[in-house]
């Protein structure tokens, strides 16, 4: 059903899930919206509900309690969608490495399209991650 129209990657709406992060990455995501970086000029905005989202920004190492919720939010997001893992946490656990409470990495819970490493990831890196997501969307459109 879902079509990848041309306007798609110029109007990405992002939903932010915190799966147990230390809040460092979350603040950097908000920093990307501030006047200094202003991602709204690329049509990106943060939305309050996964139903409106095209991009899921997942921060944190996925704790045992949050795994179910992350999966659920992923399923609630309408297709086509892109998942961006922000921060090293989701990749390896970072400072929470080998904690008894983790079920990550994130890629074992939901399919991740783009990784943005960093602890925390810098706003520039997050913006670059979004451009990587554009590339991915464009290649998907090419296939159709």
């Amino acid at each position, binding site marked *: 059903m879902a079509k*990848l129209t041309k306007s798609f990657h110029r*109007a990405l709406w992002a939903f932010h899930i915190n799966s147990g992060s230390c809040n460092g990455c979350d603040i950097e995501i908000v920093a990307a919206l501030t006047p200094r970086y202003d991602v709204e*000029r690329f*049509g990106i905005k943060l939305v309050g509900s996964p139903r409106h989202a*095209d991009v899921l920004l997942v921060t944190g190492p996925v704790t045992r309690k949050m795994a179910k919720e992350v999966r659920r939010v992923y399923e609630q997001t*309408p297709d086509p969608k892109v998942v961006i893992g922000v921060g090293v946490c989701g990749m390896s656990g970072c400072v929470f490495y080998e904690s008894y409470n983790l079920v990550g990495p994130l890629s074992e819970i939901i399919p991740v399209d783009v990784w943005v490493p960093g602890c925390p990831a810098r706003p520039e890196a997050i913006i670059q991650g979004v451009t990587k997501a554009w590339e991915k969307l464009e290649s998907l459109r090419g296939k159709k």
Partner: protein
Amino acid sequence: MGLDFFLFSILFVFLTMGLGLVVALFIRGIDRKLTAHMQARIGPPLRQPFLDIGKLFGKDTIIPENSIPWLYNLAPIACFASAATLLFYIPLGSLDSVLAGRGDLVLLTYLLLLPSLALTLGGFASGSPYATVGAQREMVTMVSYEFPIIIGVVALAWQMTMLFPFDPNLYAFSLSAFSAHLVWAEVGLFGWVGLALILFVFLLVTTGELAKVPFDVGEAETEIAGGLLAEYSGRNLALFYLGDCIKAVAMGGIIVAIFFPFNLSPLLSISGLQANAVDLLFFFVKIIIVLFFSLMLIRVGVARLKINQVVDVQWFTFSLICIVGLLLVWVDPWLSPVLGILGG
């Protein structure tokens, strides 16, 4: 009324509709751009709303399991349709509206309520606790902004019926009558102050009517996840988006038609099609200026009110200002001449 008239009307309806849609989205683009500039950001391009709509129509439309599907799907269409109907009542510059003479300001206040009502229904039908809370909040705001609006409308209608007391054929308070007779010119000093008060309240009530900051308690993204719209996605969300944009233009258009029905063409001494085009452009510019004061400036300046504060502000403060305005308009015919004698 032959076939020609019928065809012409249909053509006019489609033209108004298409123009209204494009202008509404464009104005939303200007809105976002200006807001961004006021916050020292660059902001999205002017065509961003078009891209948003294009994207939303391309997305999946999810119907939640515990929703009421027919109502859930009907609400966005009802919202869009009722908002679009508003457009047909607004005189576009020097052109008369499509439905001129078939409804007046009182009907318009009811029509203005319908998109919000559709939103509320959709919120209840989507079966999510967030949406239900949002819908209840929206109902409370709807009740609270209706009162000041209706007082303002009564004052304006009062003014108009005094102009045409005994003419049953004239729709005394249709928007076309307002455009034809400048309300400011018909009153003395007291009425002038009264009308200014009513205009002030109308500008602020527009914000509440469109559920924008500081009155956006029903959508409140940061507390209740988009509230009414929490479950909506894809095409349904796009229709709500369009309905919201059109309603903003309609509300701005109503204020312009009542309070600022000036046209440029008499000044430039042009006529015919050219004049209509110039007036139309000027009309949209006026709408943007009105919306600048009632949406953008307020949104950048203040944060969201609490739900009880919304009701307090709209019921008490706005209604009080409107009642004072109504009284001033009422006493104007007697007091202003007295003032003139004293002054002279």
